[in-house]
C-alpha cells in the first residue's frame, strides 16, 4: 500500500508538471492553430537554465526561478518577433515547420552552451522531506507540486480575470473579429509565446530537479501533447485533470509492470501513448473537449 501511495504521489507531482507544460501547448495551439514541436525544447532549456542558476551561480531557489522566468520571457519575445510574426497569414504548415526549425536551433544552442551533457542538481534544493505516516515526499517533488500549483493558478486567474486574458481567449475564438474590435493580435501572439516559454522553463526546472537534464528531455513535450488531447483541446481544466491522470497512471504502471517485462520495461515512456490511443478511440475529442460540428 505504501508503495502504491508513493507511486501515486510522485505521479501526481509529475502530472502537475505535465499539465503546466500542456497549458503552453494549448495556448499556441489555440492562437496559431499550430502544433508546437519546440514546446519540449523549452522544457529542456528550462532544465539547463535551472542548472546554471542553481549550481553555477549558487542562487537560492526563488531567485533562480525568477531569473529563469526572466530569460524565458526574453526568449519568448525574441522567438515570436523574429520567427513567427513574419508567418502571420501564412499556411499553418509553415508555422509547424518553423517550430521544427526552432526545435533544432534550441537543441543546437543547448549543446553549444551546456555541452549537451547530463546535468543534475538534486542536492542544491533545500531538504524539507515531508513525512506522512510511512510516506516520504522528497523536497524536489514538494517544491515541484507547489510551484506548478501556483503557476497554474496564476494562469487561470490571468485567463479569466484580466483584459489580456480575455483578449487571448477571444483571439482563440476568432482572429478577424478580434482585430475588428480593435485588439492588437500581434500583442496577443507575443504574450502567448511568452507564456508558452515561461511554463516550459518552469516545468523544466522542476523536472530537472527530480531527474536531471539532458537533450532527450525534450521528448517531455510530446507527453504534454498527449495530456492536451486527453483533456480535450478546448479545455484548460481538462489539461490539468488529464495531466495528473497520465502522471499517476504512468508511474503506477511503470512501478508494477516494469519488473514483469522482458527487457526491464521503460514502460513510463510509452504508457501515456498507449492510454491516449485507447481513450481517443472511444472519445475522439478527449475527455473534456467539445465535439466539432462539421458542415460541408
Amino acid at each position, binding site marked *: 500500500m505504501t508503495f502504491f501511495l508513493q507511486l501515486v504521489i510522485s505521479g501526481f507531482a509529475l502530472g502537475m508538471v505535465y499539465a503546466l507544460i500542456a497549458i503552453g501547448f494549448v495556448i499556441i495551439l489555440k492562437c496559431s492553430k499550430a*502544433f508546437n514541436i519546440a514546446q519540449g525544447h523549452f522544457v529542456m532549456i528550462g532544465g539547463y537554465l535551472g542548472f546554471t542558476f542553481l549550481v553555477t551561480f549558487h542562487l537560492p531557489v526563488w531567485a533562480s526561478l525568477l531569473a529563469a522566468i526572466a530569460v524565458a520571457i526574453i526568449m519568448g519575445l525574441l522567438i515570436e518577433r523574429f520567427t513567427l510574426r513574419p508567418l502571420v497569414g501564412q499556411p499553418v504548415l*509553415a508555422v509547424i515547420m518553423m517550430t521544427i*526549425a526552432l526545435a533544432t536551433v534550441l537543441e*543546437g544552442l543547448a549543446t553549444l552552451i551546456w555541452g549537451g551533457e547530463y546535468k543534475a542538481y538534486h542536492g542544491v534544493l533545500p531538504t524539507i522531506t515531508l513525512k506522512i505516516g510511512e510516506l516520504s515526499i522528497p523536497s524536489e517533488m514538494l517544491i515541484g507540486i507547489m510551484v506548478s500549483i501556483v503557476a497554474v493558478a496564476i494562469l487561470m486567474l490571468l485567463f479569466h480575470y484580466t483584459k489580456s486574458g480575455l483578449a487571448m481567449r477571444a483571439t482563440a475564438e476568432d482572429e478577424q473579429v478580434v482585430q475588428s474590435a480593435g485588439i492588437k493580435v500581434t500583442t496577443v501572439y507575443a504574450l502567448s509565446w511568452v507564456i508558452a516559454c515561461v511554463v516550459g522553463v518552469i516545468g523544466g526546472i522542476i523536472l530537472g530537479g527530480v531527474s536531471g537534464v539532458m537533450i532527450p528531455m525534450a521528448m517531455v513535450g510530446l507527453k504534454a501533447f498527449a495530456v492536451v488531447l486527453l483533456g480535450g483541446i478546448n479545455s484548460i481544466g481538462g489539461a490539468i485533470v488529464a495531466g495528473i491522470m497520465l502522471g499517476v497512471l504512468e508511474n503506477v504502471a511503470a512501478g508494477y509492470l516494469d519488473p514483469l517485462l522482458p*527487457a526491464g520495461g521503460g514502460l513510463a515512456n510509452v504508457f501515456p501513448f498507449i492510454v491516449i490511443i485507447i481513450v481517443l478511440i472511444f472519445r475522439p475529442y478527449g475527455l473534456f473537449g467539445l465535439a*466539432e460540428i462539421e458542415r460541408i
Partner: protein
Amino acid sequence: MGLPSGTFSQSYAQDMAIFRTKAQWIILLAFLAFLFTCPLYFSDRILTIMTIIGITVISVLGLNILTGYCNQISIGHAGFMAVGAYTSGILCAKLGWSFWAALPAAALMAGIVGILFGLPSLKLKGFYLIMATIAAHFIIIWFILQFYTVTGGGDGLAVPRPEIGGFVLKSKGSYFYLVMIIACLATFVAKNIVRTRAGRAFIAIRDNELAAEVMGVNLWAYKLMAFFIGCVFAGVAGSLLVHYVAFATVDQFPFMNSVWYLGMLIIGGMGSTAGAIFGVVSLKLLDELVIIVGPILSAVVAPQAAASLGLIMRGLVIILFLIFEPRGLAHRWQMVKAYFQLWPFSH
C-alpha cells in the same frame, strides 16, 4: 497548366499523359541516363549520400500519399520504416530468407502495422490523429526493444547485404543501382496511384471529408488504404536502409526523423510527387552542407562545437527560408518554370 504554348490535347490519352512534349521526354531520359551512370564519375562518399537520398525519397513518397494526398498527417513514419527494417532484417538474418523475398514481406508487414495504427483515423482528425501516429512511433520502437530475443533490442541486429545469384551487392555502386531502380519504380507507382480511382478518392477526402463521404467515397476503406500504401513505401525504405548499413538498431529510426520527413514534405510542397523529391533532396543536401561547413565554422568560432553549430545552422537556414518562402520549394519551382515558359515576355 504549365505547358508550353502550342501544345494541344487531341485525345484523352494525350490529355492524361504525364510527359507531354518531346523536350520533357528528352529531359527525363537524359536525367535517367545521368542517374544510372553516376557510379562512373562520383566517389563512394557522394554515392552514399545519393543512396541515402534515394531511400529517403521512397519513404517520403509514401508519406506524401498518406499526408499530402489523403490529409492523414502522420508523425510516425520512421516507426513504420522500423517495422519494415526489422521484418526483413529478422527474416534474412535469423531465418535465412533471401533479400528478394524479405523485401515484399517487409513492405507487407509495414503496411499491415500501418493499417493497425490507421484504424483510429476514421474517428480522429487533425491534431488527434497526429497524436495517434506519434504514439504509433513510440509503441513500435518500444516493442522492438522489448522483444530483444528476436530483434536484438538495444544491441542491434547484423543484417546481410542482398545478393543476386551468388553476386553479393557489396560495393557502394551496386547498392546504388538497387536503390535507384527501386526509387524510380516507387516514383512511377506513387505518381500513378494518385491518378487512379483510389487516388481521386484520397484527394476528395483531403479536400472535404464530409463531402467525399456524401459522394459515396468509402472513408473507412480509403483511409486505411492510404495508410497501407504509405506504410508499404516506408517498409521498403526501411528494409533498404538496414540492408545498406548491414546493421539494424532503433537508433536509425529516431522520432525526430519522423518529424523531419514531414518537414521535407512541407519544404517541398504537400501533395506533389515532385515536391516530395525536391524536399528530400534539398534538406539532405543542406545536411551535407552543414557537415562540410560546420567544422570550418567551429574552427573559427569555437573548436569543440562542430555538432551544435551544425544544428543551429540547419535550423537557421530553414527559418530564413520559411520567412522568405513560406509556401515551399514547389511553389518557387512553379514560378521559375512559369518564368522560363513565358520568357522573354513577362506574362
